[in-house]
């Protein structure tokens, strides 16, 4: 499969190495001469010192026969233009854009970019996952915007330990539906008893989140217990 990568920053550099290792045919376009030579010294002549935003350069790089064009520069506007030129001018079947401002994701999809890579959003998600285990973790907002998918870890301090799911005082319109225990997922039934170390998946209204927190994690009384 022939792939064109535009942008030789960290993302482009590692992507190039990974794809080469996986046996793909590719070129990397990097407009900065020094950076292009630096990468070429390591991976060979597949690096071209070119501005991938220029239609002419994309064509010379073989855009017409590319299966994928991935635009991964640090500038959203450049990534958008590369993908749109690839898609609409050279009929590239699959375009991938790095999006640095998360607000641009919707627009890019709307404008026909097939795949979005959002390092900002990934970093936010990773950081949120690292943040306190005694808090509720937002996994996703469900369509409609009023319900959220939430994960809660049951610790020793949790008032839910040793109690049956049916006996918990949960807020209205909130549902516990699955439990992750010992690496397995199981559905929660009314007679499921919660244990320390369980991860509970719940769907809740955004505004009921505090009550859900009290029921599963315990009333917030400050004080970190890491």
């Amino acid at each position, binding site marked *: 499969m022939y792939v064109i990568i535009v942008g030789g920053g960290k993302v482009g550099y590692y992507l190039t190495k990974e794809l080469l290792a996986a046996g793909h045919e590719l070129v990397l376009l990097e407009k900065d001469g020094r950076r292009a030579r630096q990468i070429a010294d390591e991976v060979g002549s597949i690096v071209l010192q070119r501005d991938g*935003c*220029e*239609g*002419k350069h994309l064509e010379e790089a073989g855009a017409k026969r590319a299966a994928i064009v991935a635009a991964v520069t640090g*500038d*959203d*506007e*450049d990534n*958008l*233009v590369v993908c*749109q*030129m690839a898609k*609409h*001018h050279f009929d590239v079947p699959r375009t991938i854009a790095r999006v640095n*401002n998360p*607000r*641009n994701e*919707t*627009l890019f999809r*709307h*404008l*026909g970019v097939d795949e979005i890579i959002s390092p900002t959003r990934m970093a936010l998600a990773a950081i949120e996952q690292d943040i306190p285990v005694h808090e509720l973790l937002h996994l996703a907002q469900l369509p409609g915007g009023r319900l959220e998918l939430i994960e809660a870890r049951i610790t020793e301090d949790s008032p839910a330990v040793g109690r049956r799911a049916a006996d918990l005082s949960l807020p209205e319109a909130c549902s516990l539906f699955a439990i992750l225990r010992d690496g397995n997922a199981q559905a929660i039934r009314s007679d499921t008893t919660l244990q320390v170390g369980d991860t509970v998946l719940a769907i809740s209204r955004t505004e009921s989140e505090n009550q859900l927190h009290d029921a599963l994690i315990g009333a917030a009384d400050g004080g970190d217990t890491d």
Partner: protein
Amino acid sequence: MRAFIAGCGRTGAGLASRLAAAGHEVTIIDTNSEAFDRLDHEVPGRALRADVTDEDQLRRAGVEGVDLFFSLTEGDNRNILAAQLASETLGVDRVVAKVNDPVRAEAYQALGIATLCRTRLLADALAIYSGLPHDPGAEGVAPATGHHREHDSASADVAAPDAPALAGGR
């Protein structure tokens, strides 16, 4: 009419002065507030510091509901992104992007954006001066020749009518 100009270079500042002098309501933005020194301070209008590629900042600067949107910064790609934000996300009907690369200018005309390609206009003027025939494609603002494939109803979001200004007026 309400006009919104992104990029307070010589072109943007000159256009702002003419539109405002003709009685139109003008907002001009730039990321660099020193650029506003180019404005004619005798004519009314709003000058705000904002990034033309940021949807939230455009919204706060009041792009929704304007009649004309001109994207005239130094970067072709910035202008292209901004023009598509204005037309696809913020619901502006008449959008012009300055795109100096002739190949890109033509590609985006086909994608539904009116473009102004300085390179082509200047080359044509000089060609005519040299005695060559006029390039029919170099005619002021080049209108959109196609429609965006994904074009559908614009975002339903509506900004508060009294959205606060980003910075003081000039």
